[in-house]
């Protein structure tokens, strides 16, 4: 089996076209299940009441915002080290979805903060570092599109993504390193301090967001490939 078969834009174009609808279907099904478990089955929180249910959007979105940045930086590293065309296009395709999830995490966080902390925004370490992540995504998108030569944009963006990777551990450990208003993590690999149905809802929503991210990236990378390869024979014969 040739592991590099799908590293060519023409073959990956077809794979992405096949993959995207399945991912969107999976995202819809998992999302419906996750929302049912989260909004109907999970018990009301003892301290926060019903408002805690925003966790089923907030936490998966925050996880995906960091995870997608990591994936984007990995594609960037592949684009720089192997000079792979498709990796640069994938990094470009992931960035807007990552920025969307970062914005969603900040926005839902503001609506959760208002009733529980009494403020939409506090200058807490985790909120600030997540805001920096949003600007890193914006910087990546702006830099990747700032050059006439798209390959140069790919490589410059990849380097920026790798420099910005420093921010990920800061976000992740910010609730441990600083004693702040944002609560620490309730979920770890050793176990959880929350009700099982709450955890199930969060996991289902995370997989739903993940599937959506793959679907959106595949759809977007198809556009990038068509634009970039518009002068090739295989695009003309489509």
């Amino acid at each position, binding site marked *: 089996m040739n592991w590099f078969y799908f590293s060519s834009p023409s073959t990956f174009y077809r794979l992405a076209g096949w993959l995207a609808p399945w991912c969107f279907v999976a995202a819809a099904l998992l999302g419906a299940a996750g929302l049912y478990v989260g909004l109907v089955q999970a018990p009301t929180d003892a301290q926060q009441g019903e408002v805690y249910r925003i966790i089923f959007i907030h936490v998966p979105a925050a996880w995906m915002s960091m995870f997608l940045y990591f994936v984007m930086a990995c594609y960037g590293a592949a684009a*720089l080290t192997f*000079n792979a065309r498709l990796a640069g296009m994938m990094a470009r395709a992931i960035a807007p979805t990552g920025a969307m999830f970062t914005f969603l995490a900040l926005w839902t966080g503001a609506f959760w903060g208002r009733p529980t902390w009494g403020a939409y925004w506090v200058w807490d370490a985790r909120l*600030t570092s997540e805001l*920096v992540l949003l*600007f*890193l995504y*914006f*910087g990546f998108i*702006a*830099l990747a599109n*700032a*050059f006439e030569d798209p390959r*140069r944009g790919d*490589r*410059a963006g990849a*380097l*920026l993504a*790798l*420099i*910005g990777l420093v921010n990920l551990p*800061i976000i992740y450990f910010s609730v441990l390193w600083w004693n702040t208003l944002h609560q620490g993590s309730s979920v770890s690999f050793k176990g959880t301090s929350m009700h099982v149905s709450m955890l199930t809802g969060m996991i289902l929503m995370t997989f739903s967001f993940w599937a959506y991210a793959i679907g959106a990236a595949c759809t977007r990378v198809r556009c990038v490939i068509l634009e970039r390869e518009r002068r090739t024979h295989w695009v003309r014969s489509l």
Partner: protein
Amino acid sequence: MSAAPAGSLPAGFSWAFARDLRLAWRHPGETLLVIAFFVLVASLFPLGVGAEPQLLQRIGPGVIWVCALLAAFLSLPGIFAADHADGCLEQMALSPHPMAGWVAGKIAAHWVATGLPLTILSPLLALQYGLAADTLAVMAFALALGTPVLSLLGGACAALTLGARGGGMLLALLALPLFVPILIFGAGAAEAQASGLSPSPHLSLLGAALIVAVMSLPFAACVAIRIALDSP
């Protein structure tokens, strides 16, 4: 057959350092403009927020840090852009010296021409804000540790934006978010001192950031310049 001239990292560093410093010395206007901007913006804050001594003491370190950060940022395009425009950067890339040496030399010269004068001048501004002597010393020390990191981070970002559309604003979008941790620890050190706590954790973190930046960012700037010169 003559042997190819041997290049070395220190030789490249000292050559670029001396060249950029001489250039800065012969065009003192740019450095003076940066300093004037720093003093001017820092003097606007008391006029804007009101001149109550307690308020000024409270916001002083943060305001001075933000002004230093903006002043350092405004001078960033000067590190590589002019040399890129007239082709010097390509000639330097062809020189026998390893790239990391002269790139680090240029960044170091940028710090000496902008970060160092700001650091030296900061106690004077701190007096305008009525900061106590010990707070003032901690702030100057934090600036001495932090401004090199700003030059290094900014140098890598400036190299990334060489030849990009919308250069200045793009550079702001790339560099300013990366400056945030330095701002937090730098202003935090003086604030801790002012409120009777030890500033050493903040200063240690700034020192650690400086070490990591010195070890990694000149190489990142080299990669960015190679991307700009299209010679992978």
